[in-house]
């Protein structure tokens, strides 16, 4: 037993109702999937295991233009907003996704907005005076003050609110939560901004899902448990390629690539230029260009089903365009996407034949030539049965249905954590971060520290189970956090967060608080874990309770003794040559105690008692030395200092001690990682 003193705080307890009666509140079938796109957004439902269905407006369109018009209050969203764009360019916002989570210094592309940044990293878009106010009010009046600003997050929230309303009209009741898709390359700030937008729109964001992962889920590619996939996403204005690895039921993005200025619009432009050239129009007017582009777009779409089509440009004679002509025009553009594909494969360390599937996303992948070239590059026919405009929303809807608590293809959500989740710490001891039987979803955070000064990395070993030593638990994941600054023992601070979301996907992230270096991993702790296995592991921990307790104490005693030995050796090396600090006879006794400690630690099976005795002996022998060092440091420190300074230094020291002690899990709101 490691205890010494008893603090009787006199806390009084009441008997509580059993923990397992507090169940997570879920509303099966009321989760919605949202593809929040740069140009268009979609919302889909897949309630109670049904096939996904994109919600359409009265004209049959599932695409809601990602455009918000602040010409009215509340703002207009979608097609109605788009119709006002030409008339009110300053108050109608489109493509806001490109501004999400960005600061002024990140914006390197052309845009028509007046942006400002009052708080660093938080953009605001000027949208002019409120509706109904006098336009062109005299200077000095409230005109300036009335100018309104919105954040990109608020604009996205307006789009999400519209999609939520569309879903609720269909459901006939409030929706419970949403899965929102984001590009695989979105960073933490962009993800957080998207999450915030969901919350502002009144949605519980179950999870943000990477767009390529959503597409893979739509095709049910997760069912195999393992696999390698490519997702080729060619939209109107952007191209993205992602290489995914499915490992133990979790998708990881191995590599991403693409071109943020390449898409179907470029195909239209190329065909339009070709049509004008064939018509002998050398210098087209703005009107001719626009008309040619609209005609080219329609022709492009017809050439998906036909091998030739006729195009009539206003005021010019009709032309016939063949699919071959069109294909020759877009070939250089298509080759650019394929180069990005080969690079992404290379970045992922893979060759095309190693892939298990290729998924097509984005309207431009309807072009037959694109399908052909993709098949050639990846050496297999791509998956293209699901409408490429809707496939991402489908995947989001399936995930949302699962997270709402619906039973789906054998997926059942757990209400409580079946086995504790923790980390291996010094000495192979398990520090439990999320205890068994905690209600899912849950998040917890704990701060860990360095053991030695030369330690500039930390191995984060995530384990599952009830046993006290890591070697007796299930190993879930392991990663290195590198780049920890060289600091004295116990001074580095690494914050580790465990976040377990509704379908038991665990995200472990570690962050060094001084440098901000960060690393994370996602695992499914329940993957391949049967109920019988859980029972066995729990019973095992009860059977080994006694041994485990002794072994944990021994491991803790060893770590503690090691720490003291290391600290003393460092101190002796630093100041031990100063006779007034460490007289010869005392030095000899100290060396003997250090040797005894080494001897105690040399026995790998040593139990806690001898290790603790060695430590107590060492602390006793070194006590005068420690006191003299402390006095010397204080004298040096206090010379020329006022009482005020000393008091402040002591307060700082207290705060530091408190920080060092920061070693216990802190439960978090699962919504806030």
């Amino acid at each position, binding site marked *: *037993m*490691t*205890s*010494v*003193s*008893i*603090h*009787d*705080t*006199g*806390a*009084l*307890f*009441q*008997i*509580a*109702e*059993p*923990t397992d009666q507090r169940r997570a509140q879920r509303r099966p079938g009321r989760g919605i999937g949202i593809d929040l796109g740069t140009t268009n957004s979609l919302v889909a439902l897949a309630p109670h295991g049904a096939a996904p269905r994109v919600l359409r407006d009265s004209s049959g369109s599932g695409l809601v233009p990602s455009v918000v018009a602040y010409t009215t209050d509340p703002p207009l969203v979608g097609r109605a907003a788009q119709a006002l764009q030409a008339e009110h360019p300053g108050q109608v916002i489109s493509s806001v996704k490109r501004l999400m989570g960005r600061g002024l210094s990140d914006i390197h592309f052309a845009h028509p907005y007046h942006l400002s940044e009052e708080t660093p990293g938080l953009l605001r878009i000027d949208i002019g005076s409120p509706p109904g106010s006098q336009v062109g009010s005299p200077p000095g009046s409230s005109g300036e003050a009335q100018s309104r600003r919105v954040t990109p997050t608020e604009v996205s929230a307006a789009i999400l609110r519209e999609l939520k309303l569309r879903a609720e009209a269909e459901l006939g009741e409030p929706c419970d939560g949403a899965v929102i898709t984001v590009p695989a390359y979105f960073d933490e700030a962009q993800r957080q901004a998207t999450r915030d937008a969901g919350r502002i729109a009144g949605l519980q964001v179950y999870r943000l899902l990477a767009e390529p992962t959503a597409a893979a889920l739509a095709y049910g590619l997760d069912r195999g448990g393992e696999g390698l996939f490519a997702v080729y996403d060619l939209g109107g204005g952007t191209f993205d390629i992602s290489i995914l690895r499915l490992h133990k039921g979790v998708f990881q993005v191995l590599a991403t690539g693409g071109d943020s200025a390449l898409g179907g619009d470029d195909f239209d432009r190329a065909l339009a230029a070709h049509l004008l050239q064939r018509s002998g129009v050398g210098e087209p007017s703005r009107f001719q260009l626009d008309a040619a582009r609209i005609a080219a777009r329609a022709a492009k779409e017809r050439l998906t089903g036909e091998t030739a089509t006729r195009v009539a440009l206003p005021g010019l004679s009709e032309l016939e365009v063949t699919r071959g002509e069109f294909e020759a025009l877009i070939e250089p553009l298509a080759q650019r996407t394929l180069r990005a594909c080969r690079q992404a494969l290379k970045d992922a360390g893979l060759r095309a034949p190693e892939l298990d599937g290729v998924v097509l996303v984005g309207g431009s992948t309807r072009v037959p030539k694109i399908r052909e070239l993709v098949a050639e590059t990846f050496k297999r026919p791509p998956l293209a049965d699901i409408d490429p405009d809707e496939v991402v929303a489908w995947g989001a809807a399936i995930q949302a249905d699962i997270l709402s608590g619906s039973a789906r293809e054998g997926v059942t959500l757990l209400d409580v954590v079946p086995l*504790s989740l923790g980390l291996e710490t010094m000495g192979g001891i398990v520090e*439990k971060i999320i*205890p068994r039987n905690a209600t899912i979803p849950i998040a917890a955070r704990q701060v860990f520290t360095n053991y030695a000064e030369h330690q500039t990395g930390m191995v984060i070993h995530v384990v599952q189970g*009830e046993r006290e030593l890591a070697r007796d638990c299930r190993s879930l994941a392991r990663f290195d956090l590198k780049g920890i600054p060289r600091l004295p023992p116990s001074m580095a601070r690494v914050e580790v967060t465990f976040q377990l979301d509704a379908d038991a996907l665990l995200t472990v992230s570690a962050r060094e608080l001084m440098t901000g270096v960060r690393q994370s991993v996602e695992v499914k702790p329940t993957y391949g874990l049967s109920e019988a296995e859980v029972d066995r592991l729990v*019973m095992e*921990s*009860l*059977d080994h*309770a*006694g041994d*485990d*307790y002794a072994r944990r104490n021994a491991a803790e005693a060893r770590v503690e003794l090691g720490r003291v030995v290391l600290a003393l050796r460092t101190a002796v090396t630093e100041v031990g040559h100063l006779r007034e600090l460490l007289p010869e006879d005392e030095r000899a006794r100290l060396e003997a105690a250090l040797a005894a400690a080494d001897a105690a630690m040399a026995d790998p099976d040593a139990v806690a008692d001898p290790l603790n005795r060695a430590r107590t002996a060492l602390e006793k022998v070194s006590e005068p030395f420690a006191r003299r060092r402390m006095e010397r440091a204080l004298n040096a420190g206090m010379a020329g200092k006022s009482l005020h300074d000393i008091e402040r230094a002591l307060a700082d020291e207290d705060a530091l001690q408190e920080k060092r002690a920061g*070693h*216990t*899990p802190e*439960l978090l709101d699962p919504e806030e990682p």
Partner: protein
Amino acid sequence: MPSLTVTSRAAKIMRDQLARRGTPQACIRLGIRGGGCTGYSYLFEFDDKPPRANDLVVEQDGVRVVVDPKSLFYLDGTEVDFETGIRGHGFKFKNPNTKDACGCGESISF
């Protein structure tokens, strides 16, 4: 052999509370779990299931208090009592194993 004691006064209150809850035969589970501001905290709740094979069952005046074998290592020698005083009424755990306790007394360290 690890042990736990329940005072008669505590047992009487437990019996009353079990009766009022309509489950005079239920157990009362005492345990240790992770969490709280200094690491571990007490678990103290009604348990409608029968004791498990490995549980320590302490019977006092007809009331069964059960402890799982793992928690028992941290509870060995604890006396469960009931106190009434200016700070209110409640059960009190006199646990000889505690090293530190936080201000609220609900978290303990060993």
